């Protein structure tokens, strides 16, 4: 340790005109932060802004050409615009509501009752959550479309109804979308439900409430702010849904924002109607902004809506034989949200010609595997998923950490960054990126390269990664970092020695979920990728459109299989690596301790 006198000398600063916070390493820190904010602004906030501006320009390229309000007015005065808006609101709100009700109920069952299988609910829901929507959608598509679809066989054999009466339209679309988001609702609600003090329920019972009325008069009202918050969150995500409405809506002429934009842009017209598409996007943006504001208002600026202090355990109570009904509900949801589409995809991939005849063949796999492109396709997708997921999770981690410890501006900026991409209809993200990056030197050259695709994916999945990572960051109390600072660690050292090890599980989860998001995403590459750099999702969708649904299923299953294998291996490597690292760390210290002991004895 240096003596106080040398320290005093070393530290003797002459009074400076520049405030302490703007000198030396803190200036470097501020510059780095400024740079990061600039980069994030260009990546995340510029696209929605330029897209909004593009609503008022007429030209061959999005965001270029004459300023004009004509296409904007024209789009707004077209009734179909408002039909699309209404459809989007109905689909998003109805599916969020349905999923939230079922999810909340299951969360309650999992935490507060002694229902059989309740311990399996959370892990199962987490697994279902990572099924890409296109894969899930194609699975359901195969269940209800075509001659060999199980539903149609049943209808034909029992009622003599031909065709695919439930192939598309509102009922099936709602069912499929709700099934897809139930795990989201469940996972959002299970935490707050578990933090709720069971004594509040008991108090209601002691005051004359029955079990049922206690649930409705105490449990639910207490959770209402949380539920509103989750509902708003899910609805705003629901607005930009693309894959499922594409599969189940378009045939029945039901359009939502994303699909309307997609058809507007791919329509065989001489000039794509960019302004019209952007105007649609503008409406969506407005809706999302309003919802985010409502969410902030409902949660009242609280970061957590915690219902209890500490030390409470929600005591699960037995509700008697009705719990078997709860188990049945869980199994039905499990089939609905995961098993049915998954099984159908597996079966479908072995069907010779989808929708025409039954029987099993490995021909689809032979085709897919025989195609020289397949290996490259899967590798490319996986690399994109791994890198994109990692970068998105990293951005999410750094941003969440900064906003938890930082000031109001950083918090607001973080909010904006993690929400802005949600406000762009899926398919438009690619277009918005091109429009935004075209004027930026350096970024301009990236257009058309895989890096552009990667950037796009990062923008799309960062909000998802943020939701996964920020919980972990919030759990680290400020004092853990402060004690590191007092112990002599700089901000950066503190981040790497204290914050990172503690959020690692959340970070890895965020990486994995974001990676899956990349692998299964169709809306971005469908417009952004060129024939030379396709992802599995695009290829599978092409196969499906050309009528080779079974091959699409096979291709997708291969991707999922690879993701599973690669993910599993990565998991084992990380876990094993950490364990080895820990053990060497410990044994080094233990060795040192025993050595010291020996010295002492000698």
């Amino acid at each position, binding site marked *: 340790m240096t003596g106080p006198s040398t*320290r005093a000398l070393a530290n003797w600063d002459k009074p*400076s005109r520049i405030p*302490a916070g703007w000198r030396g390493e803190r200036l470097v820190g501020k510059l780095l932060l400024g740079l990061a904010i600039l980069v994030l602004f260009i990546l995340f906030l510029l696209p929605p802004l330029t897209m909004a501006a593009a609503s008022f320009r007429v030209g061959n390229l999005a965001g270029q050409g004459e300023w004009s309000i004509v296409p904007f007015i024209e789009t707004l005065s077209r009734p179909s615009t408002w039909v699309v808006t209404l459809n989007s609101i109905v689909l998003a709100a109805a599916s969020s509501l349905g999923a939230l009700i079922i999810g909340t109920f299951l969360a309650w069952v999992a935490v507060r009752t002694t229902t059989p299988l309740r311990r399996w609910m959370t892990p199962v829901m987490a697994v279902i959550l990572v099924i890409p929507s296109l894969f899930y959608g194609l699975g359901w598509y195969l269940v209800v479309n075509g001659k060999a679809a199980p539903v149609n066989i049943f209808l034909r054999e029992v009622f003599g109804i031909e065709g695919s009466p439930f192939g598309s339209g509102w009922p099936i679309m709602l069912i499929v979308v709700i099934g897809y988001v139930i795990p989201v609702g469940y996972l959002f609600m299970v935490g707050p439900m578990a933090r709720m003090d069971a004594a509040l329920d008991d108090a209601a019972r002691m005051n004359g409430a029955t079990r049922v009325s206690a649930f409705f008069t105490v449990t639910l009202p207490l959770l209402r702010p949380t539920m509103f918050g989750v509902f708003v969150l899910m609805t705003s995500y629901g607005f930009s849904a693309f894959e499922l409405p594409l599969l189940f809506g378009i045939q029945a002429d039901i359009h939502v924002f994303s699909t309307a934009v997609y058809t507007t842009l791919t329509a065989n017209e001489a000039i794509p109607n960019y302004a019209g598409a952007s105007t649609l996007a503008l409406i969506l943006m407005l809706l999302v902004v309003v919802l985010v504001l409502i969410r902030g208002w409902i949660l009242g600026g609280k970061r957590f809506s915690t219902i209890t202090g500490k030390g409470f355990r929600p005591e699960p109570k037995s509700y008697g034989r009705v719990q078997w009904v709860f188990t049945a509900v869980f199994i039905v949801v499990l089939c609905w949200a995961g098993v049915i589409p998954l099984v159908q995809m597996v079966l479908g991939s072995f069907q010779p010609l989808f929708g025409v005849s039954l029987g099993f063949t490995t021909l689809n796999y032979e085709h897919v595997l025989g195609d020289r492109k397949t290996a490259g396709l899967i590798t490319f997708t996986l690399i994109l998923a791994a890198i994109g997921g990692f970068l998105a999770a990293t951005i999410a981690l750094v941003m969440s950490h900064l906003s938890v410890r930082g000031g109001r501006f950083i918090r607001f900026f973080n909010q904006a960054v993690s929400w802005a991409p949600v406000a762009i209809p899926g398919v438009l993200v690619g277009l918005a990126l091109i429009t935004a990056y075209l004027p930026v030197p350096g970024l301009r050259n990236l257009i058309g390269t895989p890096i552009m695709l990667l950037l796009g994916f990062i923008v799309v999945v960062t909000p998802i990664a943020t939701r996964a990572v920020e919980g972990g960051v919030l759990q680290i109390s400020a004092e*853990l970092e402060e004690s590191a600072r*007092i112990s*002599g660690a700089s901000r950066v050292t503190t981040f790497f020695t204290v914050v990172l090890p*503690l959020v690692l599980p959340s970070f890895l989860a965020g990486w994995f979920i974001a990676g899956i998001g990349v692998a299964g995403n169709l809306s971005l590459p469908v417009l952004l990728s060129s024939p030379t750099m396709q992802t599995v999702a695009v290829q599978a969708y092409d196969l499906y459109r050309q009528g080779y649904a079974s091959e699409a299923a096979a291709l997708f299953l291969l991707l999922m299989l690879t993701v599973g294998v690669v993910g599993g291996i990565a998991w084992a490597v990380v876990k094993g690596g950490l364990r080895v690292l820990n053990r060497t760390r410990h044994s080094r210290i*233990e060795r*040192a301790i025993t050595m*010291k002991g020996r010295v002492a004895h000698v």
Partner: protein
Amino acid sequence: MSSLTVRALHKHFGDFHAIKGADLEVQEGEFVTLLGESGCGKTTTLRCIAGLESPSSGRITIGERTVYDSQARVEVQPERRDTGMVFQSYALWPHLTVIETIMYPLKRRRVQRQEAIRRALEILEIVGLAQYANRPATSLSGGQQQRVALARAVVSRPQLMLYDEPLSNLDPSLRRQVRDEILRLHALGGTTSVYVTHDLEEAMHLSDRIIVMQAGLLEQSGTPGEIFSRPTNEFVAKFVGFENLLAATVTEVRGDEIEFRLTDSGDTAALPASAAGRSVVKGDTINVAFRAANALVHSEQPPAGAARLAFRGIIDRIDFLGSRNEYRIVSGGSSLRVAESERAYRRHTMHREAGATAWVEIDADLVSIFPVARTAPAPDAEADLVEIGSRE
């Protein structure tokens, strides 16, 4: 180890003025406690000294070294201030073992590995946790965790030790134990220490000097004995347990005696000048304060004497509290609280009922007087510790 000087420290949180100009000086090796209710600014003061909070203005010097000066625009980051801190919530890192936790500050200060392990084991031996060296720090019990936090704070032999209510999360039975541990480590290393608490007994036990804080102001500084028996204002008096405060006016100050008239009853009385925590002059409005436990209740008027005060009153209420009887006695418009020990009440209770006349008697050296309206404190040159600013 080194001294600590804080000058004219202000801290605003938006509109809230959390510290209203704190001046304090802590000598080398001194153990000073900031005592006050929650929200009085004591923790904020500590965090400003640690560098975890940026003051709005003022100057902080640790030893020879200025770590914060709003005028010279100096602000040293917390990791460069060479302090150790013990947090209320222990703030132990869940991913590290006990020995790794204690080695962390040594590692950050570039102490060689072998040396770091040696020192970590040494300090673990001192706090009696050597057998837990390889356990995760958060798997220990509360008292043990706080001892780990203590060891982590002192292991790098910081210039200054800061304690932020380190005992308030512990069971009462453990507090005494950890308190002894803190005193032992303090005696061992002789590190200059600043301790924050709202617990009077804790402050009395640990400190060389106590500074009482209220609403962002330093109210009084003194040895535990001084604070306990000679409060200089109403807030400190109430805080250290003077239940009875009687308003009075000084009628005469002569030699070593102060004569005064009680406002409510009009009675006059005299006390030795040593009863005053700060000097008073004729005409001052003062408070005459004493603890309920120090007074006696009599059924008849006690014999008068210079060394005592006596008040006549009517018993309003008697509360039986087991180990003592608590009387409310109305005397000339003021309500006095007097506690009677078991020994005394066993003899008297039968004759005493609400409505009866009683005399309250108290020894003069157990009475404290201090001015009511604070006159600007006489700035004795470089007092070791002073109240700051004026009341708003």
